[in-house]
């Protein structure tokens, strides 16, 4: 029997998630450098082609790419099952990359017809992703809270993509639908798109855009953060869930709040404040459970990866406060409240979600590199631990520059000051440079593995 036959029984091959990770990082670097060059984008109201293009670069190119790659890696191991199809995942990667690059480009030049075309390519990839993960979920030996959170995120992702495509369809015209022969399949498709455009016309444009964006960020990314952290935080801190009921309540409240918020934001209803309260209650319940888990932890020291992640969770507090202010019934739309909406989006994307992802990056990348370079040598040679693959000093510099960058950029956006925005995002760029050096340090182990011969039959250290 081959003793290594079980290696990677659940996890997909290392290259699959790695290619998502590298693409995501490149998108983040591009987006931040873009902001350094054009800080005015964030210093003005967000309903313009440049903010929308950049937002899609961050959301689709950075966050979605990373999250999808991480899910292909983490969902099978966290739920103790196998990925349904690695080949589908490879196809999805192609659709996703072509789709998001085309969408960002077309948003920038505001060609909505082509946004729709590239959006359809991206949506085809998203459908493959949802199908692949859903089939994987159907294989889990026992249904858990994490499976529920992942399934919820898949549902919100599907609705977000559908809403996005409907908004894009609503911005196009379909003269050819009436001139093509009825039997022509293209005519049927155009009539469908025209019907979608007619439906989209029932809703206020900005309300629809906000509902789409809010559902995507909270429904997909924050829901996944909540669900996955219920597994990962106890695992990394040697702790355990303190109150199962509380974990379920947090996910149920978040789902209820997300559905209600989507409808009320779309309809520009005054009741959106009520559902914002439901969402905040869900996040508060989650926060209480996280505090309880951390208080019960056995491992005193927390590595920087975990500190990044927990800081992201802490940033949910100002984000929630801002959500309540912005959903307050009758809040006038002044230039300042418009800027606060920009801060809300920025804090959610580059504060909460990006901070959390960079933290998890320091867990996932070392694991993938270690797995690719050293897993077959475990027990045979002296191999480095995950923490030996990167520099904690660089992690610390990256942490502080990102945190100060997020806070200072948020203040600069609120004040509508482009020069100050440039300084703030400049700090984010410095942080990314440091992250890049650390990633290179980790990846170098794939080229030059640093294992040593075992010290065979070492002296027993008196702790048998």
């Amino acid at each position, binding site marked *: 029997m081959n*003793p*290594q036959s*079980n*290696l*990677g*029984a*659940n*996890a997909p091959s290392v290259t699959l998630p790695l290619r998502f990770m590298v693409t995501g990082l490149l998108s983040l670097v591009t987006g931040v450098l873009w902001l350094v060059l054009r800080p005015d984008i964030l210093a003005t109201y967000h309903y313009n082609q440049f903010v929308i293009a950049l937002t899609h670069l961050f959301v689709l190119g950075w966050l979605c790419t990373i999250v999808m790659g991480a899910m292909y890696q*983490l969902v099978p*191991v*966290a*739920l*103790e099952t196998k990925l349904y199809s690695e080949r589908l995942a490879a196809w999805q990667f192609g659709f996703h990359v072509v789709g998001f690059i085309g969408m960002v480009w077309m948003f920038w030049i505001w060609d909505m017809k082509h946004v729709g075309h590239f959006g359809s390519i991206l949506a085809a990839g998203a459908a493959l992703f949802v199908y692949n993960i859903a089939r994987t979920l159907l294989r889990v030996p026992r249904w858990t809270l994490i499976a529920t959170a992942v399934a919820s995120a898949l549902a919100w992702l599907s609705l977000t993509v559908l809403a996005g495509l409907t908004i894009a369809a609503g911005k196009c015209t379909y003269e050819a639908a009436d001139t093509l022969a009825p039997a022509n399949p293209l005519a049927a498709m155009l009539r469908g798109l025209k019907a979608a455009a007619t439906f989209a016309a029932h809703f206020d444009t900005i309300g629809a855009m906000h509902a789409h964006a809010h559902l995507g960020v909270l429904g997909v990314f924050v829901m996944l953060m909540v669900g996955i952290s219920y*597994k990962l935080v*106890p*695992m*990394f801190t*040697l702790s355990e869930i303190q109150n199962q009921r509380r974990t379920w309540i947090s996910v149920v409240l978040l789902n209820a709040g997300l559905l209600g918020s989507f409808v009320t934001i779309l309809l520009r209803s005054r009741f959106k404040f009520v559902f914002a309260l439901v969402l905040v209650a869900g996040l508060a319940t989650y926060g209480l459970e996280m505090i309880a888990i951390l208080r019960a*932890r*056995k*491992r*005193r*020291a927390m590595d920087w990866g975990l500190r990044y992640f927990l800081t992201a969770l802490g940033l949910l507090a100002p984000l929630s406060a801002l959500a309540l202010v912005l959903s307050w019934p009758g809040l006038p739309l002044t230039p300042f409240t418009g800027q606060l909406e920009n801060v809300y989006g920025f804090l959610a994307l580059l504060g909460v979600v990006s901070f959390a992802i960079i933290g998890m990056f320091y867990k996932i990348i070392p*694991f993938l590199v*270690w*797995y690719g370079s*050293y*897993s*077959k040598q*475990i*027990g*045979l040679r*002296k*191999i*480095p*631990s*995950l*923490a*030996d693959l990167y520099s904690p000093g660089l992690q610390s510099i990256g942490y502080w520059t990102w945190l100060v960058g997020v806070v200072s950029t948020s203040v600069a956006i609120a004040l509508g000051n482009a020069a100050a925005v440039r300084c703030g995002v400049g700090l984010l760029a410095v942080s990314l440079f440091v992250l890049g050096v650390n990633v290179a340090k980790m990846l170098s182990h794939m080229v030059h593995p640093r294992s040593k011969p*075992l010290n065979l*039959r*070492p002296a*027993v*250290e008196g*702790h*048998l």
Partner: protein
Amino acid sequence: MNAIELDEPLVVETLRQVIDPEIDCNIVDLGLIYGVNIEGSTIRVQMTLTTQGCPMHESIASGVKMALLNVEGVKDAQVQVVWDPPWHPSMMTDYGRARVGLRA
């Protein structure tokens, strides 16, 4: 050539070469080894992991097997990963607790 006699201290010492790379501590001092059984040239190890669904599951279990098969005189090594009783930090040795920086 002198054959090395297989005994539990030798097996435990061998298993000490297998680390959990996330926690950076060997699996013996982590308290992951529940039992060792030696029958002739066959070794059976019953062990657990710190958490169910641990991403290192296959690597560590496979590493245990490889390390044992590498010992002179071992012809077969069987590794069984169990979840009952579930692992708890109280199962760690003093050395393991100190290495991991565990709270009392």
